[in-house]
């Protein structure tokens, strides 16, 4: 049922403009590869482990290989051809052995041509298909578990964060959160990981304000939550972060370890981590294709804009970004059911009508993306050390979530402005959510924004501003708009930022069976 009575023509225009604005960027994304995409491809093909002898610390084998390939023959043709050619030429059994030999300086990479190239491509495809079939099996396994154990009984699903820095403590806290009512557990990453151009290895215990995202940590958490799922009688979803310099690789690891959701935004890395825009768009495209394959729900990061820009003035930038995220996601193969588009309750609570304005924004998102599992993010910017006030604000955030039919509710903590959440913060926060869901969960039945009333007008206004902005972006180019600080007030020129030198123009003969198989859905 539509409460806002949005004009379908305006909505269609918005989508058309978003597609148009995205088009040149999609072209760029298709025309380039990155070190991370190539590493992700090799990870799918089965490379694992790290060079523990290296003086710079544990460097994953896949980094050693891709860096060496690049050094020897460039990445313009992708890593698959030189790597599988080298495997064949040197008669080495596994990619990991190849990596060891590479580190020992025994391998010389070249781009094969002719039959050698065809052989290498084929061998690569066989290996990658093995990885993809593992991802497919995980997806089937998830479906099976959900059928057997069940989904949460209510919407929105309750999303809780753990962030101890130590995977073992994380497991304890995640289990207790799930028992207390969480449906989704997200492990926050250590600050700074998103700027590492490699994925750390193994189980880790010393993150800063978060725990490193590693394949082993993913495995540990998923296994633990599989146990807890049985205990609590609902499938507990596990989330981690794809965004950052290793977006494609982490997406692969998430698929291999049956994560259920991943933070993946088309612009977050650019805006909030100063990662090069081109790098991000290329990486993002590959990672989303991976998520599509793995049935992983993406969580986009529009909430972040409202921490640096004003939530009222910049409301329409959230809508624009959601439309862009939607387009990029569709383009990469993600269906609506996997689009956890983000938005947030970040209006200054001292503003008159702030709550109604939140409702207007939240409802706009709901009605623009009726099939998407929207992710509703709690107040952070206007949280203060006054934890009593904060707890109240979180309650109203929860209420806005149920009134506007949000799908995934990231639970707000009264200590948001103080510390990373304590055990008791999480417990009180879940009790808050539970009260609101239980006492007022069905109040949406009685929530009917007045025709032409404040809420409806505000929603229409924001949509109108979004269309105007999209119009300007189509004219200026999305990359220029990002460069000008359109989103979150962050100015990010397309030729600057971290990871720029990891971007490579594809040559005509570029080969990447992974991309092909992701596009076609092939399993062999």
């Amino acid at each position, binding site marked *: 049922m539509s409460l806002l009575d949005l004009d379908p023509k305006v909505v269609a225009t918005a989508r058309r403009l978003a597609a148009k604005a995205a088009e040149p960027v999609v072209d760029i994304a298709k025309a380039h590869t990155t070190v991370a995409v190539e590493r992700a491809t090799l990870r799918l093909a089965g490379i694992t482990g790290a060079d523990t002898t290296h003086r710079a610390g544990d460097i994953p084998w896949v980094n050693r290989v891709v860096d060496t390939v690049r050094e020897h023959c460039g990445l313009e043709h992708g890593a698959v051809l030189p790597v599988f050619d080298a495997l064949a030429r040197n008669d080495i059994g596994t990619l990991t052995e190849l990596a060891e030999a590479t580190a020992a300086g025994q391998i010389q990479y070249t781009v094969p041509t002719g039959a050698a190239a065809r052989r290498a491509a084929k061998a690569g495809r066989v290996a990658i298909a093995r990885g993809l079939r593992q991802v497919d099996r995980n997806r089937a396994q998830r479906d099976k578990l959900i059928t057997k154990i069940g989904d949460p009984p209510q919407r929105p699903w309750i999303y809780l964060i753990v962030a101890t820095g130590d995977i073992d403590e994380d497991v304890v806290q995640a289990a207790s959160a799930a028992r207390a009512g969480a449906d989704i557990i997200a492990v926050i990453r250590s600050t700074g990981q998103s700027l590492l151009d490699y994925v750390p290895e193994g189980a880790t215990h010393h993150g800063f304000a978060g725990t490193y995202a590693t394949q082993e940590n993913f495995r540990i958490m998923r296994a633990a939550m599989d146990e807890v799922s049985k205990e609590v009688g609902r499938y507990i979803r596990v989330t981690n972060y794809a965004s950052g310099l290793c977006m494609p690789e982490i997406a692969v690891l998430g698929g291999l370890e049956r994560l259920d959701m991943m933070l993946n935004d088309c612009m977050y890395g650019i805006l909030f981590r100063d990662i090069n825009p081109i790098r991000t768009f290329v990486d993002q495209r590959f990672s989303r294709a991976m998520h599509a394959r793995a049935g992983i729900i993406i969580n986009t990061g529009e909430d972040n804009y409202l921490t640096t820009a004003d939530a009222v003035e910049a409301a329409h930038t959230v809508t624009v970004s959601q439309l862009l995220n939607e387009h990029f996601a569709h383009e990469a193969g993600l269906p609506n059911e996997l689009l956890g588009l983000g938005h947030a309750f970040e209006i200054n609570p001292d503003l008159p009508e702030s709550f109604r304005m939140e409702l207007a924004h939240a409802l706009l998102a709901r009605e623009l993306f009726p099939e998407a599992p929207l992710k509703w993010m709690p107040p952070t910017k206007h949280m203060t*050390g006054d934890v009593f006030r904060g707890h109240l604000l979180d309650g109203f955030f929860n209420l806005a979530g149920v009134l506007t039919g949000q799908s995934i509710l990231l639970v707000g903590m009264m200590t948001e402005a103080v510390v990373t959440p304590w055990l008791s913060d999480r417990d009180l926060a879940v009790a808050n959510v539970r009260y609101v869901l239980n006492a007022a969960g069905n109040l949406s039945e009685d929530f009917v924004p007045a025709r032409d009333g404040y809420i409806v007008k505000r929603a229409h206004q924001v949509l109108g501003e979004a269309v105007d902005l999209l119009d300007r972006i189509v004219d200026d180019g999305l990359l220029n708009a990002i460069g000008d600080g359109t989103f979150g007030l962050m100015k990010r020129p397309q030729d600057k930022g971290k990871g720029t030198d990891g971007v490579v123009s594809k040559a005509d003969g570029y080969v990447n069976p992974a991309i092909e198989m992701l596009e076609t859905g092939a399993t062999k």
Partner: protein
Amino acid sequence: MTKRHVRPYGDATGDGMVQVSFTLPVPHGPRADGAAQQLANKMGIDPAMVVHSHAIGDGFTFFVVYGSVNHIVDLDEVKVVEREYPLLSPAEVNSYVKKSLRRKLIVVGGCIGTDAHTVGIDAILNIKGFAGEKGLEYYRELRVVNLGAQVTVPEIVKRARTEKADAVLVSQVVTQRDAHILNTQEMSAAFREAMGERRPLMIAGGPRFDPLMAPELGVDRVFGRGTTPGEVASYLVHAIKEKV
């Protein structure tokens, strides 16, 4: 199994983290924050973060402080009134009373002083009960006389006498100016004075009582927040066993 020595747990074992809030009669500003910091330090919180402060009127400031408290709790030193008797079912209570007294056990209850909060004593005495447990009136072998609210001490002494009460149960909810303590002491003294050794068992209850306070109050037993009727009935059996 818990260890003997523990510290508060915020986010990790042993981090000692606590949250504190209070108001100081000091105008808002850096000096006030410093004063809050000093108080937190005196409470053993170090480092202490004054994470919030705001003015209340001109002369007061409200603070929220977070930090790690350096005290260690010694669980072996924890004083609690352990329930030294088993929890009995109503049937068990009834059958014991019947066997040992060969008559009904008589309970007189009420709120003394100006206290009009009867919900607590009613939760213990009335059939309806509390937390899913039936109240003492439900017990066939107990006879309950509930005097209700604002009973004076002379009244309850008189009534206990005429009813030949085995036990007197009084409730005290209002604590301002220590009314609960003073009223209960007045009552226990009056019973001692009026009846000496033949006084009934004296039980006081209320949400702000600490069970450790029985000696100070001059009563036999004290029940705090969340007490259930079954606990009280079981205690009655235990106490008459001791007497018999």
